[in-house]
């Protein structure tokens, strides 16, 4: 029992060790890139899941914050010379503060205004990036100095940086899941009226969850600006980024800690390789439609996602996701 308990808590160390060791085994630049993107998507999906999965509010603003993060980081680098890899966490804080304002507008009330406002927010940030030319460079974008180092070393740097952000995001997600705050968010998802009745300040809970969610999008956007050495109003607000975040979370299992990670680790490599495996016209044009089909199919036939569905198959019991109780509390209650 004790050994099992250790495994139950410590199992993530195994993939972690593998991931830390991988670059030492001569990953080429392309694979470093592939992992960097996978970590980025995983961290953003974990972030999205905090508002979209735990609290059950669909946010389409995370893309806007990804772009905002790219621009804020790019501008501080080009005007003040502050290196992005150092400022990225602060850029995330800026995004979180903006998220507080947006959240205040959209989350004061229950209901559909949140999804509308978050989509509008993404459009507006993109719009401003495009039209505040004197600041952002407009459609020409921002050109950032290259990190002058060996390309492989550079790949390693981005690899470990985003791996770190991913680990942090998982730690935060676990922490929230086990806290009163997390309980409150799940209560809001299950029945917001009741949650409010039981004394939870739902507005504050939702806004804080939204801020945390957007911190990760902002950090990912900031790092990505340095990765591309370039920020552009089209690239920074590519709608497929948002679609990916959502589909990855849903595929993995919304509202669980590991679901979004699982979804990202399956979907991103798969998408990258489809381009090489399939004839390009099919892979390219059908790519977007296919993601859409996957989204509809998951929503309709596997809304609980892979993780919870698999758990059900293995355990044949209702999974903890649907209960407004953290997983370890449930475990200790019924040994």
């Amino acid at each position, binding site marked *: 029992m004790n050994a099992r308990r250790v495994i139950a808590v410590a199992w993530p160390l195994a993939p972690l060790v593998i991931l830390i060791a991988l670059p030492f085994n001569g990953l080429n630049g392309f694979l470093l890139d592939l992992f960097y993107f996978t970590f980025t998507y995983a961290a953003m999906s974990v972030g999205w899941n905090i508002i979209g999965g735990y609290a059950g509010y669909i946010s389409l603003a995370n893309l806007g914050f990804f772009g905002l993060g790219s621009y804020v980081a790019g501008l501080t680098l080009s005007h003040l010379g502050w290196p992005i890899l150092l400022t990225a966490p602060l850029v995330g804080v800026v995004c979180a503060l903006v998220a507080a304002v947006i959240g205040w507008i959209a989350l004061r009330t229950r209901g559909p205004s949140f999804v509308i406002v978050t989509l509008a927010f993404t459009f507006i940030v993109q719009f401003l990036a495009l039209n505040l030319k004197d600041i952002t460079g407009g459609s020409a974008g921002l050109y950032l100095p290259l990190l002058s180092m060996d390309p492989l070393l550079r790949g390693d740097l981005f690899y470990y940086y985003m791996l770190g952000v991913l680990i942090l995001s998982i730690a935060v997600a676990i922490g929230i899941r086990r806290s009163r705050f997390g309980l409150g968010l799940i209560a809001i998802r299950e029945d917001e009226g009741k949650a409010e009745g039981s004394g939870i300040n739902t507005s504050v809970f939702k806004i804080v969850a939204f801020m945390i969610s957007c911190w990760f999008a902002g950090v990912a956007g900031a790092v990505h600006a340095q990765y591309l050495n370039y920020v552009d109003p089209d690239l920074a607000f590519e709608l497929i980024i948002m679609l990916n975040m959502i589909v990855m979370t849903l595929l993995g299992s919304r509202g669980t800690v590991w679901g979004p990670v699982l979804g990202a680790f399956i979907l991103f490599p798969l998408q990258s390789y489809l381009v090489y495996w399939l004839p390009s016209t099919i892979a390219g044009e059908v790519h977007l439609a296919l993601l859409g089909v996957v989204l509809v199919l998951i*929503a309709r036939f596997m809304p609980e996602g892979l993780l919870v569905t698999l758990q059900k198959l293995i355990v044949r019991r209702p999974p903890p996701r649907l209960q407004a109780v953290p997983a370890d509390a449930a475990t200790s209650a019924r040994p």
Partner: protein
Amino acid sequence: MLLLQGLVLGVLVGGMYALMASGLTLIFGVMRLINIAHAAVIIFASYLSWQLLRVLGIDPLISIVILVVVFFIGGALLQKYVLSALIDKDLSLALLATLGVANVLEGMEGALWTSSFHAINTGYSDQTYHFGDVYVPLIRIITFVASVIILAGLYVLLTHTNLGRAIRATTQNRAIAQLVGVNVNRITMIAFGIGIAVAAAAGPLMGMYYPFYPNSHWGWIGKLMAIVVLGGLGSFRGTLVAALILGVAEQVTILYVPANWAATVFFVFLFAVLIVRPQGFFGHVARESL
């Protein structure tokens, strides 16, 4: 004179905006669902109308009739087999499903018609009338008149038929509607079908007015959301008034500020409404839960 020109163009375009947004508001009213795919459906109808004109020589105004029927059936089936199951479970899943549908349509259009702009050009596309210094393109009069006719038909359907009364009852209160004997599930399916059919009717008109390309629906859905929020989500009359206001505001703004800033008119209104009066100016359903 310039202002008068802006006003005229604004009212004309506002009529079409009203048609584009009315399906969105109808669907929201009955299902409390923001149909993110709404503009994508409109663009898809534009493409089909373009194809019908190109291959079979069917005038876009006539293709409206065909598209309305086809899209009504398609919408009703989508509601019955995909969305209705989700709405009982979790409305946010239905919302995400419409996001998925939007991307399916966009990707499909890219595969079938490439990514370049398309425009529906007919023999009367380029004619213009002018009254003094005010120029009014014929196509704008046609789209305006067609929009008004379709909206009037929809209005009569909603207010003077049993089906319309049932839809309105479902919009106001699902539970009570069920109690008084309305088959709520069936009505929801029909209402969703009508909403999609109205979007389909807007497609050919939009396509004669503006060129379109697969991802142009993202720009439109932002505008349409601003209209329905200003109109009070779910309010039919509110949506009509809001569409006219925003159409005029946009066309007049474009005369005095750079064209690329005119697009902000919609977002300024959207945020102003949400900050000052989250329930919109003409309705009172926005506060209800998602």
